[in-house]
């Protein structure tokens, strides 16, 4: 009998073309996503060495990081952003790469449009010059972020060279309580193991909680794998995965699909396969989460107090610097903290379910006067769903406006910047200093916690409204 393998081993091993002695594996890449920010220098490099794109059909381009979220029909005002968008379009055209630029009906955040159009499939290797590429692991793919040198590498050779990471399994068993979303599950895990707790590992998420999650939820979880240092995270494909993908425009259709199903179904960790680290959590311990510091590991239950310095894994000096930046103190209660901005969106929480959750709380209520809210769908397809399902009407009645798709205030490359010193409850993935604008203070949370803050103007337990 052959040695039991993990899901990760099965997919990784199937893509190794060569193992370099005392070095990395040469890994074949099935799908490569590019965007305007991390690709231009890669194309310049390609030209510098006189190389071409080896398999243009395996690369997909979309514009998202730098795009405005209002008036997308007008020319992009910022000349530097416009220049990057033009470079992406030019490079895509030159090398015959599919390009969903600004205004294209399939345009949106790269990690939203890949899955929703069926480009992402179980068992694939997927890379992109963006650390949240880990999102695609929700489908049982090995997906991770790369640097620009590697973007050039994949364009030129469809391969990258990586040492095989170690393996970690994180199981969450039981049933989550009322008002607890996938975002809370992953924020809880990160708060337990720290922002570097999975560095050097590739994670498999297992257990009842992930098994019972929708694909949108699994994407939220896998998206934030990088926030605990993991290169990526994955969930074994099951019927939920296949139901989501079947019939999506760029997924294999008909007989081609049917032929792949047995392979997809084989992608699970064998009984007895070993992990370097195996962690288990109890779903009952998870309440709606919120972060209070400047890395995603500094989070806690929304009803709790900010921990004392001696109780956290970061060094005391770094921890105190973090709280000072946030304008918070040890032992402060999070409930009731004032909120100036609410951001719903990003590759973490910019999908239809996130808007449904947000709407479930603001329905019949009004946006707090002291809150500026930016609601940014992850793609035009999500935007269309919001309208079709009547969610836009609910949002409008409550005093909210919907913006156009893009990465927006998650990284504040475009005009959507939180002003210095202001507090933003944000459904995105990073609360680093200045991440949402110079001096901005970010509190990461789920769409429900964001909605509760948006209608009360302060940090609020969303369970009060459910």
């Amino acid at each position: 009998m052959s040695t039991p393998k993990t899901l990760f081993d099965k997919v990784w091993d199937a893509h190794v073309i060569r193992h370099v002695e005392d070095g990395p594996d040469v890994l074949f890449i099935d799908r490569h996503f590019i965007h305007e920010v991390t690709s231009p220098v890669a194309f310049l490099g390609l030209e510098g060495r006189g190389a071409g794109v080896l398999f243009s059909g395996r690369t997909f381009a979309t514009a998202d990081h730098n795009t405005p979220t209002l008036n997308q029909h007008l020319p992009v005002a910022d000349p530097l952003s416009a220049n990057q968008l033009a470079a992406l379009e030019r490079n895509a055209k030159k090398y015959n790469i599919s390009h969903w630029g600004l205004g294209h009906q399939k345009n949106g955040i790269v990690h939203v449009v890949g899955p929703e159009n069926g480009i992402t499939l179980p068992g694939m290797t997927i890379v992109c010059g963006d650390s949240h590429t880990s999102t695609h692991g929700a489908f049982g793919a090995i997906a991770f972020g790369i640097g620009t040198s590697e973007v050039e590498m994949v364009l030129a050779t469809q391969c990258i060279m990586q040492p095989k990471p170690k393996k970690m399994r994180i199981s969450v068993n039981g049933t989550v309580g009322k008002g607890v979303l996938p975002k809370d599950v992953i924020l809880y895990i990160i708060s337990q193991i720290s922002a570097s707790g999975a560095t050097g590992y590739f994670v498999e998420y297992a257990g009842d909680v992930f098994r019972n999650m929708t694909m949108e939820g699994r994407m939220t979880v896998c998206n934030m794998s990088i926030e605990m240092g993991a290169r990526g995270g994955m969930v074994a494909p099951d019927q939920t995965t296949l139901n989501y993908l079947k019939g999506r425009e760029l997924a294999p259709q008909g007989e081609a699909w049917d032929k792949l199903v047995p392979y997809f179904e084989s992608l699970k960790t064998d009984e007895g396969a070993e992990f370097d680290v195996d962690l288990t959590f109890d779903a009952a311990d998870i309440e709606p989460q919120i972060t209070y510091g400047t890395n995603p590991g500094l989070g806690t239950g929304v009803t709790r107090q900010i921990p004392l310095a001696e109780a956290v894994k970061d060094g005391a000096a770094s921890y105190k610097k973090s709280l000072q930046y946030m304008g918070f103190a040890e032992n402060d209660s999070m409930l009731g903290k004032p909120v100036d901005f609410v951001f719903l969106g990003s590759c973490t929480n910019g999908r239809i379910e996130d808007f449904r959750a947000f709407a479930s709380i603001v329905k019949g209520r009004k946006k707090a006067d002291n809150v500026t809210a930016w609601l940014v769908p992850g793609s035009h397809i999500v935007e269309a769903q919001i309208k079709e399902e009547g969610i836009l009407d609910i949002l409008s009645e409550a005093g909210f406006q919907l913006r156009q798709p893009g990465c927006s205030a998650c990284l504040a490359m475009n005009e959507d910047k939180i002003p210095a010193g202001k507090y933003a409850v944000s459904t995105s993935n990073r609360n680093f200093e200045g991440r949402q604008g110079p001096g901005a203070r970010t509190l990461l949370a789920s769409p429900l916690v964001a909605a509760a803050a948006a209608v009360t103007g302060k940090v609020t337990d969303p369970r009060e409204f459910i």
Partner: protein
Amino acid sequence: MAYDKFTVLRSTAVPMPIENVDTDQIIPARFLKATERKGFGDNLFRDWRYNNDDTPKADFVLNNPTYKGKILVGGKNFGSGSSREHAAWAIYDYGFRCVVSSFFADIFRGNALNIGILPVQVSPEFLEKIFAAIEADPNTELEVNLPKQAITILATGESESFGINGYKKHNLTNGFDDIDYLLSMKGEIEQFAATRPF
């Protein structure tokens, strides 16, 4: 892109004893709008280094003339967050060739190696010794010896070995990159691609 070969580096070092230095601090997103790789060093640690009116913040280490050199010494979990290679470019462009920490984020480590910056991971104890040595004398020199895989505090002679795989070591000491290697096996890659189910 070609980079300087790395063999033995002897230099004073800049201490930054802060944990979880993420790539948004190294280079904030609003400076990622270039389509060419140049000038990123000017915005290295932009928001820690400059006030909103672009005047330097006196208490930040890069603005303190006491500390200089080609080696940056950071706290645990250096380079976490975004995959932006611009962070490594900014560090290289500013003039650093080596970053020392007790722990690196994976993507940053890979990006650094790909552009000719050597990430040297030392034990937490040795990191403290380096910080203490620089505090005692900012002119103290470190020697980073890649062929011997050793880092030494020259003033005290204390030394520790560091890990790097043989392939990457060979690349760095010769100025080679992965793309050169992969282009040489193009036929093998094309054969493999033909076997993929999707």
